[in-house]
């Protein structure tokens, strides 16, 4: 049989389809296994958080007025189910939790999960902006530092990244407020600015005052995350540069721009996407700090207020939600990683 171009193309597409189907199966198997693991982790975490939080202190002392009689206290205790043994309380809690009911906030009486989800858009908006910002700044700087590791500019970049890495982020935020909000007065020091409601979501990114409010917190987070992205990009660049495909692309006479922007970038993207994905989870969790500094009304600020006010249902609901989010994020990052890098074999991994 002669190898006509049509036949070659046919053969190739058949091979690709075969490879793809085994990969899809492997990915599916991984997803199912990981989801089962997630259930186990969630059960363990919920038990730990529940037992931990519910063993300490007495919420009645906060709920009942100081003059309440012992009978009144008992009535409140019974109405909240707090008179049951701990394991019964946990089962009741889990029974309601799987139906999406995480109890009501002790402070406002609203469902805890609804309180948290109302705050979620603000946090996600901030986290996504910050992450995009750090990738957009970090990748070019990292490539630059990887190309000429000995150059003065590269050393400056790396020293800067050590600073971004090690300085406490909340203090960086405070200093940015001091310079840009207090001294220069360019941006507001706190709040979200004007928000626009898109459906049930309130977003800041569609107004000028929203962007001005978003700028400082996003830059603060980006300063820390940028450092990680720079380090990963630099390491990947240094690893990829001596590879044959780069030499070949150069030998073909491609412009430096194309060699770096297409051939190199495509290959170093794998570790960058992985790290950026995992860092995104860190940013959402770390929002606790940034949101406190900038009084950004997100989930993290709610968590801190709830911890200080002993508002247990909100604390438990937030922790379970964020644990679920982080576990899912890890799974998604793993899948993206496999899709991007065909050399990774899922079966071999735990």
């Amino acid at each position, binding site marked *: 049989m002669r190898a006509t171009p049509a036949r070659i193309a046919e053969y190739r597409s058949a091979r690709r389809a075969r490879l793809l189907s085994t990969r899809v199966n492997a990915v599916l198997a991984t997803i199912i296994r990981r989801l089962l693991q997630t259930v186990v982790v969630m059960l363990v975490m919920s038990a730990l958080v529940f037992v931990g939080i519910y063993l300490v202190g007495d919420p009645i002392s906060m709920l009942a007025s100081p003059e309440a009689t012992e009978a009144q206290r008992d009535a409140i205790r019974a109405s909240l189910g707090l008179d049951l043994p701990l394991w019964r309380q946990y089962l009741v809690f889990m029974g309601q939790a799987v139906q999406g009911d995480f109890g009501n906030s002790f402070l406002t009486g609203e469902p805890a999960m609804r309180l948290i989800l109302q705050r979620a858009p603000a946090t996600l908006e901030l986290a996504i902006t910050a992450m995009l910002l750090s990738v957009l700044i970090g990748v070019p700087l990292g490539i630059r530092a990887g190309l000429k590791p000995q150059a003065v500019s590269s050393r400056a970049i790396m020293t800067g990244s050590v600073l971004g890495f090690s300085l406490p982020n909340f203090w960086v935020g405070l200093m940015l407020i001091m310079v840009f909000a207090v001294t220069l007065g360019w941006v507001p020091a706190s709040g979200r600015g004007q928000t626009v409601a898109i459906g049930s979501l309130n977003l800041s990114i569609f107004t000028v005052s929203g962007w001005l409010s978003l700028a400082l917190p996003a830059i603060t987070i980006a300063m820390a995350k940028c450092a990680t992205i720079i380090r990963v990009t630099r390491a990947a660049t240094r690893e990829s540069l001596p590879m044959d495909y780069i030499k070949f692309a150069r030998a073909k006479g491609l412009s430096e721009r194309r060699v770096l922007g297409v051939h190199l970038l495509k290959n170093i993207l794998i570790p960058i996407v992985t790290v950026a994905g995992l860092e995104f989870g860190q940013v959402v969790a770390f929002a606790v700090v940034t949101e406190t500094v900038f009084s950004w009304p997100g989930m993290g600020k709610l968590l*801190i207020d709830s*911890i200080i006010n002993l508002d247990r249902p909100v604390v438990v609901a937030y922790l379970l939600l964020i644990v679920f989010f982080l576990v899912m994020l890890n799974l998604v990052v793993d899948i993206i990683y496999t899709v991007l890098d065909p050399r990774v074999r899922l079966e071999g991994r735990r």
Partner: protein
Amino acid sequence: MSQADIVKPAIAAARKPEGPWRRFFVDFFASKLAVVGLILLTVTVVAAVFAPWIAPQNPFDIGNLDIMDSKLPPGSESGDGTMRYLLGTDGQARDLFSAILYGLRTSLMVAGISVFFAFAIGATVGLIAAYFGGKLDALLMRIVDIQLSFPAILVALMLLAILGKGVDKVIIALIVVQWAYFARAARGAALVERNKEYVEAARCMSLSWWRVLWRHLLPNCMPPLIVIATIDLAHAIALEATLSFLGVGVPVTEPSLGMLISNGFEFLLSGRYWISFFPGIALAIAIIGINLVGDHLRDVLNPRNAN
């Protein structure tokens, strides 16, 4: 080329300092950045340890404070003209320089103790996992994996939400957050060492397993653990400051640097920058110093770089 030119480098090479300690110090002091880091670190440690003797004022003795002197800018004189506030005063009229020295004490103590215990627990777990292997190893490392997949700040917050405020509680939270790093590193190092002859020899002498672990395996796994301990010390200082800033860390009676920064936060917006600024600088000096030392220690202690 004369003969002397050839012989000189040869003599120099032959005189290259021998002995692991000597070589370590020569390698370490070869980097200017690391020496700068060591100086910064020494200054902060000395300042923290000798705070009661260096500080011009005991900032926690209410009798010393004159409320008329509160929120004075850096360099101003106290109302009764007896002392000069080098870095200004805070909202409670404490001399900021003295408060920083005492705060540094709390910060370094909390970080140091927590790293010490995290090191001890983590190294033990890691060595046991590597030495015995099998199901125990799988179980222990699974726990480490799961814990490390959660951000440190979140784990610490969760624990403090349960435990409440206090220096001891912050230390416990920091130990729980950090032990897993040591466990992973110790296991990695011990897996390599486990199959070497000296371990086999120790086993042949039918020494008890903890003696093999403690006296033979551990000393050879130290270099990577020391590097992690240094970097982790900086991490612990930053984390403690963050927790105290959030108001869930150390109590008001023992303010750490994070607490001082947090106290200054409310005055920052009215332009009184120094109350937050200077404690932050002290924090930065401590953290950068430790990081510079740790970064270079990594290069010096890495056996792959030894020539």
